[in-house]
């Protein structure tokens, strides 16, 4: 058992982090690795499935990034630790980022976590895995709870060109 050395119950249900401080999100998208990479790194495309939030960076290793709805709310900032876009020779893509969530005081107090994007071609599709780890023992579920909606929207955008319109998915897109 992995929990016997901790006294606190950690669970999604309690809004606390999973054991091992890691949450894993996986999705298959019928698109090339290059298109998936572009959808993650292009601010216009990114905003379409990330609640209207644009992410800006020059995407070089060691560069910084910011994610915000300008004039409305700052969402996150951090460093691009590993930046390996898929190429003609190597279709696997890897992006490792530090993640400082900024959208509320409570969420800011969670400190720095890490987000890893892995793209792996499988047949005519790609497996995209987002690993959000280095979560604090009492992580607020809000910190990592948005990934399923974001990834669902990314799949919809790349496969149909359309926007996901479930409640919340267009949270900041009114303006």
């Amino acid at each position: 058992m992995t929990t016997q050395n901790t006294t606190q119950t950690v669970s999604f249900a309690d809004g606390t982090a999973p054991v091992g401080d890691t949450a894993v999100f996986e999705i298959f998208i019928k698109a090339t690795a290059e298109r998936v990479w572009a959808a993650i790194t292009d601010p216009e495309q990114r905003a379409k499935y990330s609640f209207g939030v644009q992410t800006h960076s020059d995407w070089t290793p060691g560069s910084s990034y910011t994610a915000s709805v300008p004039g409305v709310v700052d969402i996150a900032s951090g460093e691009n630790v590993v930046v390996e876009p898929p190429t003609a020779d190597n279709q696997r893509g890897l992006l490792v980022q530090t993640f400082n969530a900024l959208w509320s005081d409570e969420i800011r107090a969670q400190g720095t976590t890490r987000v890893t994007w892995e793209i792996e071609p499988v047949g005519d599709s790609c497996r995209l895995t987002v690993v959000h780890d280095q979560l604090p023992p009492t992580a607020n579920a809000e910190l990592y709870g948005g990934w399923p909606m974001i990834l669902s929207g990314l799949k919809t955008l790349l496969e149909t060109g359309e926007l996901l319109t479930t409640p919340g998915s267009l949270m900041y897109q009114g303006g």
Partner: protein
Amino acid sequence: MEAAADLVFKALADHTRRDLLDALYAHDGQTLTALEERVPMTRFGVMKHLKVLEEAGLVVTRKRGREKLHFLNPVPIRLIHDRWVSKYAEPWAASLSALKADLEES
């Protein structure tokens, strides 16, 4: 998309597999050995059910050191929600919110 949804619905149509998902929901990132203690079943039985959950994408495994950890992947359930549940549930929820707003104003 429909084939993927079939796998998810089939995986969810078994109470042991739902119990395993609940065990991971309560406590993510468990080994096979830890999961065996959560359901009254042999190691082989648990492995068989985990395989069905993995094929549906509901469970994702990651190696950590020498251990293979099982994580709940909520994304396929979100996809089903976006494709099916929201279509039927949302107009209903929207009219209830409108009613609530009307009542609160009067």
